[in-house]
């Protein structure tokens, strides 16, 4: 890891933290538990396509722990860890297959982010009834995934030049 990468990683952590804070202040409330825009996923996407996979995994973990310690409690940290973890796994796999562009990877990230959160909620509440939200969570994850993928693509093409210098 060179100095430029380290500097960018620090910047990404700060950005992801700010975006999580914005989402915490302005939550998406459409009456569906587990539905999140996942703004911080934008930074994760950009990091994945610029600084690299290992760095992106550390970025995700640092973000979840920082946000959890600052705004939430243990159960909230558990939700976001499951969401972020599953989402990142899906994105890493999708990216490695080489079959999808930034958009496809981002869509999978968005969908699995919501699925991860609902799975933890089902375990915590000991109810299977949350499963009925799955279709809505898939649709929301797909829409936010397309939007985030679009923006991430714009940013990535501009930031990438910096790493080639």
């Amino acid at each position: 890891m060179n100095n430029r990468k380290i500097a960018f990683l620090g910047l990404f952590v700060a950005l992801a933290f700010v975006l999580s804070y914005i989402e915490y202040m302005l939550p998406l409330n459409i009456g569906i538990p587990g539905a999140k825009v996942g703004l911080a996923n934008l930074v994760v996407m950009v990091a994945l396509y610029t600084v690299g996979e290992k760095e992106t995994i550390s970025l995700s973990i640092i973000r979840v722990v920082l946000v959890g310690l600052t705004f939430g409690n243990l159960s909230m940290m558990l939700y976001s860890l499951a969401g972020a973890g599953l989402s990142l796994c899906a994105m890493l796999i999708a990216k490695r297959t080489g079959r999808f562009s930034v958009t496809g990877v981002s869509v999978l990230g968005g969908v699995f982010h919501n699925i991860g959160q609902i799975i933890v909620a089902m375990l915590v509440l000991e109810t299977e009834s949350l499963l009925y939200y799955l279709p809505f969570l898939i649709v929301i994850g797909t829409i936010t995934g397309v939007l985030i993928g679009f923006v991430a693509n714009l940013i990535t093409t501009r930031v990438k030049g910096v790493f080639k210098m």
Partner: protein
Amino acid sequence: MKKNDIILIAVLLAAALLTAVGMRIWQMNNTRDAAKVVVTIDGQVYGTYPLDEDRTERIELPDGSYNILTISDGYADVTEASCPDQICVKHNHIKYSKESIVCLPNKVVVTVEGGEDSEIDGATF
């Protein structure tokens, strides 16, 4: 965007639509006149109320937080709650079997149970 991305999005949306429609059909066919509203807190049954009787129930938690359940005109709804996210209050009212309103912060789940034969629902225990 690649062709694969578009296929992925189409498959996801189609799967979501099919499951949503399928679930709604199942719910409508499994809701009988004797439907009940079951309230659980943290997986434990707190109370059971008939869906065809209008009432307002204050669901009180040991730590002072609460959800107010209103049953009227055959619908169950959470009309007020102490939780910070208010997702349960924003949720549409429910009437079909297995529909539920969830309050994650309070760990409260309000579920409609269809009819006679779902008296003992193993999954809630």
